[in-house]
């Protein structure tokens, strides 16, 4: 559904990113369809229902504003984890910095070559979930990504991946405007942990499509880098088959603008999807989680847990929807979004939505926004813990419900350390 009000024209965006050449006919066709859709529907504007709280102007501006590269942020958080590293530099795959993309149970192919071949599964998958995800809400940045992104990987998982796959997005060029696209397919019973880290680019448009087959499990963990000036529009599309599992967690520290969309569809019965996020920001920080979960099958469980800590004018946005279709009896849907405001200057804007067409479901949602609890603070300080440290303990405690969504204890511990370090730096 296009909004009735006219939207900004999107042709300039498409022109700024020339269409890739030399790709297979099916890939070129998918790109053409996306470009046509973007032209027809236009770029997002403030009048769009889902862009009311987040101004898309800086995501559309040409050229992208530059963002200082944070030199020391080599994202050492996952160093202790044995993983297959695939490194991008300013949004461009850098094989010389990466491990050889060979892993038992996993086929990994750079997108640029996958789209020139006739790979059956990639042909079915590329742009498919992104296209489905455009209804009922337009996702124009993901459409642009389908039309133009050249970098990324096509990953097919056929068994239990021997190690996690880690996508590392390093920056060097302060002005880089990058688009990265990954297409994943997990065959029945397959299992993969996908780790993403790093700020990516001054402006980073990133899309991940994940088709998760029967009984398969995808664990996705992401940190978005500490670079202050960066902007990002990301979209995660996941479709789950019967008894499949999808768990995704994102940690965001800093960043001028972050819009993380997650579009999840239950296509098979008894599947489970959890999406969670924790973010901390102060000052010129705008963080938006926009989630759309469609229950289209019996007995599925979805969970959304989003926590934001905001200070000094930071803005947090949460737009989360659970749509339960008539067939989706026995749905268990849960959604919580909470913000902790460390001062009076910060803002949290939340729009939880439930739309339910089945009668035998359990769906709940909650959203809260508040300051640090003074009773707790006094209790801690009365035991000798200095106020600043006590406040940090309470901030970490607040975020912990989201971090607890991470299954891998080492990764969760790493997230906690990273948050504690962020808070300690703020303490100065």
């Amino acid at each position, binding site marked *: 559904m296009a909004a009735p009000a006219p939207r900004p024209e999107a042709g300039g965006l498409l022109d700024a990113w020339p269409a890739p050449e030399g790709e297979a006919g099916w890939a070129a066709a998918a790109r053409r369809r996306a470009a046509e859709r973007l032209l027809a529907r236009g770029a997002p504007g403030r009048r769009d229902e889902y862009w009311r709280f987040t101004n898309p102007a800086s995501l559309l501006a040409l050229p992208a504003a530059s963002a200082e590269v944070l030199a020391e942020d080599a994202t050492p958080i996952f160093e202790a984890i044995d993983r297959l590293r695939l490194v991008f530099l300013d949004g461009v795959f850098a094989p010389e910095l990466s491990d050889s993309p060979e892993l038992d149970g996993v086929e990994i192919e750079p997108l640029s070559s996958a789209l020139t071949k006739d790979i059956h599964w990639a042909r079915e998958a590329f742009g498919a979930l992104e296209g489905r995800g455009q209804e009922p809400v337009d996702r124009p940045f993901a459409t642009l990504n389908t039309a133009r992104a050249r970098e990324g990987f096509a990953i097919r998982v056929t068994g239990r991946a021997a190690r996690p796959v880690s996508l590392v997005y390093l920056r060097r060029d302060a002005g880089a405007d990058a688009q990265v696209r990954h297409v994943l397919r997990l065959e029945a019973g397959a299992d993969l942990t996908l780790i993403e880290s790093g700020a990516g680019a001054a402006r980073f448009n990133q899309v991940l499509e994940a088709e998760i087959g029967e009984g398969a499990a995808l664990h996705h963990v992401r940190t978005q880098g500490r670079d202050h000036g960066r902007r990002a529009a990301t979209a995660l599309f996941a479709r789950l088959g019967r008894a499949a599992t999808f768990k995704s967690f994102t940690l965001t520290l800093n960043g001028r603008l972050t819009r993380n969309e997650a579009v999840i569809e239950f296509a098979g019965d008894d599947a489970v999807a959890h999406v969670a996020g924790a973010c901390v920001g102060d000052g010129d920080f705008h963080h938006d989680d926009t989630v759309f979960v469609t229950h289209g099958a019996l007995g599925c469980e979805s969970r959304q847990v989003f926590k934001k800590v905001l200070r000094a004018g930071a803005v947090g946005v949460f737009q989360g929807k659970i749509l339960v279709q008539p067939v989706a009896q026995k749905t268990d849907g849960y959604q919580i979004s909470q913000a902790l405001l460390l001062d009076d200057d910060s803002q949290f804007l939340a729009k939880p939505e439930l739309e339910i067409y089945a009668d035998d479901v359990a769906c709940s949602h909650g959203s809260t926004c508040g300051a640090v609890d*003074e*009773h*707790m603070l*006094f*209790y*801690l*300080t*009365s*035991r*000798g*813990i*200095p*106020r600043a*440290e*006590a406040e940090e*303990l*309470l901030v*970490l*405690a*607040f975020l*912990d*419900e989201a971090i607890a969504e991470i299954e891998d204890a080492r990764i969760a511990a790493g997230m906690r350390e990273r948050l504690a370090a962020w808070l300690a730096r703020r303490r100065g």
Partner: protein
Amino acid sequence: MLNVENLHVRLEEEDKAILKGVTLSVGAGEVHAVMGPNGSGKSTLSYVLAGRDGYAVTEGSAALDDLDLLDLEPEERAAAGLFLAFQYPVEIPGVGNMTFLRTALNAQRKARGEDEVNAADFLRLVREKARTLNIDGEMLKRPVNVGFSGGEKKRNEILQMAVLEPRMCILDETDSGLDVDAMKLVAEGVNALRSPERSFLVITHYQRLLDHIRPDVVHIMADGQIVATGGPELALEVETNGYADLLKSVA
């Protein structure tokens, strides 16, 4: 040890006087009880001494030895050796009891210029103290006071006291909400900490706690003032005749 002199306190939010000239002095190693009817200002006294926000001291002083307590932040008072066992211990989801205890102990040690206690020594220390208070490992692992019964919360307060080893302990209605067995356990924990260098101010509504924690001095508080001071027999008088008779005789 603790010297409170003509302390006047009112609520910051509403212009209401709560303490109207409280004077008391607790010597080293002594146990003083403060008794009084509801609304007499007993809990306010404990909060003001511990440094809780929301109160304005309009007159008088409070000192821990030669330290002016009213000048210090709550954490500084704690590091100086003051401890308040809360009437209603606060639940803190997401903060583990052990993390809390260790952070508190090390923060106090750091403030006093002492070395931090390492994880292994700390674990030994807490386990030993917890055993005597009948606190099991499960309780130590849980978030601070979350899902604790009334008795467990109070025992957890005494555990904190045992680990932090303050020299001036204020117990605010530690007996409230406890059955007899739980009260005995808590009293034993307190008695185990009694020493010539450690003093206690035991605030209570009922005399029964004082059967288990024997006070040296008993103060009766009413309408923001200490109206009577005496030995343990004063508490028994309250028990027999209630506050009304006593207050009448004072008036």
